[in-house]
């Protein structure tokens, strides 16, 4: 019997965190100090720096996945509404989120927006905030609004901990998250260069670990992973290099990500857990923290369907950049069923790709999709066709 390698140990730890729908890691973190609190947030973006600066743990709530049996949650939603809100309600009603002291609902779509009000009704004893981000990108307009929104959240969190959050604390947290984002960028760049060394099924699990671990620990974990996986060469396959897009909210089952890889795709970029790399570069940590977070959001953040593109020319630019900088050969549109933002965005992005001669394929999933054969076949055909076209060229 062979001992497991360090990289296997990291992946197994991440897998255990991913599988744990009781958020024991959060409970353990809280148990170290009775003053500690955990604040949950749903996809896509909240400024986690504020939560961290309060001394609290930001916890990404990304639905129940494919292992949670949704019984009560289904009674709250019609069949034509996506699955993430129903499994999230299931997590709440079954007590799994009791360790979460407050919930933030970012402005991503009407379903998550309305879920914020449902949470207020269902869990009146918990702190709940709908967190709006601006769709106007002028500093004196959208920035002004956004700074007020962040200030409101800062004051709420200060009340929860019993003392104000200082600028120094915020700047310290910005540094922590700058480092975390840098590590995520390193991981993504490493995967794009060596996709066989950092399979997306593993990179994804590392990202998910960042939803429940303190950022400092998560940063270290990612760097340990890169170092350890680099030591053990893995066979490189003649796979097609693809970008996956449309999966920014309800997450695909892990089996789906594995199926893409088994079907012959190397995922070299994606939009899973965008919160961890929403801000594209370092946020200055020696100035007015809310002002700097605002500027980073307005002028230096990623693009996705729930964020308004101010001009037609901007549509698809971010995706094209992902394709070009990662050396991708095609795009896989993988969106959850009934996801309005992703599915309404898709035809525009497809048009941009077609004009740039970039092949794509599209399918839908739910977080509990069980049958992978059709997706594997579709992805396999797509990968084969890319390889055939490449050969022909």
């Amino acid at each position: 019997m062979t001992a497991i390698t360090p990289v296997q140990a990291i992946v197994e730890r991440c897998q255990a965190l991913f599988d744990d729908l009781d958020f024991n890691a959060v409970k353990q973190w809280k148990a170290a100090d009775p003053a500690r609190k955990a604040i949950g947030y749903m996809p896509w973006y909240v400024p986690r720096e504020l939560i961290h600066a309060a001394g609290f743990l930001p916890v990404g709530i990304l639905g129940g996945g494919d292992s949670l049996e949704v019984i009560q949650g289904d009674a709250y939603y019609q069949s034509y509404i996506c699955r993430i809100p129903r499994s999230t309600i299931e997590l709440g009603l079954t007590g799994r989120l009791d360790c979460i002291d407050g919930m933030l609902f970012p402005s991503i779509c009407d379903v998550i927006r309305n879920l914020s009000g449902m949470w207020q009704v269902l869990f009146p004893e918990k702190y709940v905030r709908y967190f709006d981000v601006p769709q106007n990108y002028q500093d004196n307009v959208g920035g002004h609004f956004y700074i007020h929104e962040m200030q409101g959240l800062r004051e709420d969190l200060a009340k929860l901990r019993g003392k104000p959050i200082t600028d120094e604390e915020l700047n310290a947290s910005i540094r922590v998250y700058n480092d975390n984002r840098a590590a995520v960028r390193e991981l993504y760049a490493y995967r794009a260069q060596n996709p066989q060394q950092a399979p997306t099924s593993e990179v994804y699990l590392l990202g998910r670990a960042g939803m429940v671990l303190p950022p400092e620990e998560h940063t270290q974990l990612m760097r340990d992973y890169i170092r350890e996986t680099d030591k053990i060469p893995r066979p490189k396959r003649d796979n097609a290099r693809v970008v996956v897009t449309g999966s920014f909210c309800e997450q695909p089952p892990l089996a789906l990500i594995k199926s893409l890889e088994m079907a012959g795709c190397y995922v070299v970029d994606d939009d899973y857990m965008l919160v961890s790399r929403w801000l594209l570069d370092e946020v200055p940590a020696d100035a007015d923290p809310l002002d700097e977070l605002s500027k980073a959001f307005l002028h230096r953040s990623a693009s996705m369907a729930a964020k308004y593109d101010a001009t037609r020319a901007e549509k698809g630019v971010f995706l094209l950049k992902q394709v070009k900088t990662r050396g991708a050969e095609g795009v896989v549109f993988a969106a959850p069923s009934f996801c309005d933002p992703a599915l309404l965005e898709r035809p525009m992005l497809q048009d941009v790709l077609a004009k740039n001669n970039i092949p794509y394929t599209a399918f839908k999933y739910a977080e509990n999709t069980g049958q992978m054969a059709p997706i594997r076949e579709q992805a396999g055909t797509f990968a084969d066709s890319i390889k055939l076209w490449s050969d022909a060229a």
Partner: protein
Amino acid sequence: MNDTVIPMPASKKAKPTAVKDDAMNLQKELINANYMDLAQAHKQGRKVAATFVPGNLNELLMCFDLARSLPETNALQNGMRKKSGKFIMDAERDGHSEDVCTYVKADLGMMMGGEIGPTGDPLPVPDVLLLSYTGCFTFMKWFELIRHKYDVPTLMLHVPYQGSGRIDPNMRDYVVRQLKETIIPGLEKISGVKFDIDRLRQYMKESVKAEDDLVKVLQSAKNRPSPIDGYFGAVYYIGPIFTAFRGTPEATNYYRVLREEIEQRVREGRGPVTPEGDMKNEQYRLIVEGPPNWTSFRDFWKMFYDEGAVVVSSTYAKVGGLYDFGFRHDPDHPLESLAEYCLGCYTNLNLPSRIDMICNYIEEYQADGLLINSIKSCNSFSAGQLLMMREVEKRTGKPAAFIETDLVDPRYFSAANVKNRLESYFQMVKQKRTTGIGEGVRPVIPLHSVQ
């Protein structure tokens, strides 16, 4: 008041006739006149703006001499004329998902068919898309899709959601800043007309008169029998004020005529006018949450009036403004007032506020219960409605029921299923009356958050 008989919109079936009162005829004339106006706008050298119903800035657009096109209205008019089914399927064949809003697909399908509007007149490609996604994220993608097709300039007015159940000063300030910094300069540039705030004030003075009359009309349903149907009838009543007419003398006149007609009905003790004449015997008084189905609108309505069910108030009639809770456009504070208007539309309220509002309606209008028409296309309305239903039942003791249809996709209207559910619901209401369960129970949470 004279009742007249006029033809209903074109259909493949034998053409039915509908009884309409003077105000309904006037409303139809107004809506048709706007389509004529749009058809001729470019020939007359006028620019065209497209914008959405909730939080629409009609008074402001008129300050720039812009003709106004409302894509939701186009889609619903196409739905009522049985044209939307083909448009939706055309859009789906063109790559749009079967999962998404059918208003969007009906609009995109209409464009693919050559931009012929519901009345058969050509609809011009807009010169500007005024994008306020008050209460609905889909609006944002909708105009991005139109912009992607036609490369039309788009002006975004981001209206924050009332997540905490109130309008925070920061939210109001944000909307006003956008109006000053982005929207007004943008409209000046596109239209070539300089903004005149006194002109805006003048339009708002007209708006207030129409708003006062509309509220009197909607609140007339507190009478027994109700002289109006606050859902099926109200969709006619809200047409001019929620679209291209608020702020015009035509709208003021329409709402005055309408109010006078309704007051006359109250004096005469008459029930609401239906397509088959006056409803004689009011059996059930209901509150309805959610938009109507447009493709089978008349069949749907008939299921109610055949049973003597009148809708005394509906949330859909507030989708373009909550005037019955006191809001009026304020000529003395025009931009702040536009901001308040946008922020206060029904689907921009959080779930607890919507629940409060319905409980309040049940009490004030002495309703027998709540009916939710859950619309597949509309997550803004639909997500959370099952919880709303439970809460309203719990707090009022009144029975609630749930049906599912769609806006303009005829594939999602199952007449037999809807009728069965409605009949069961009416029986339930009757039973509840007999047993007295729930009598005397009143909403316990005050309507604090709706302005």
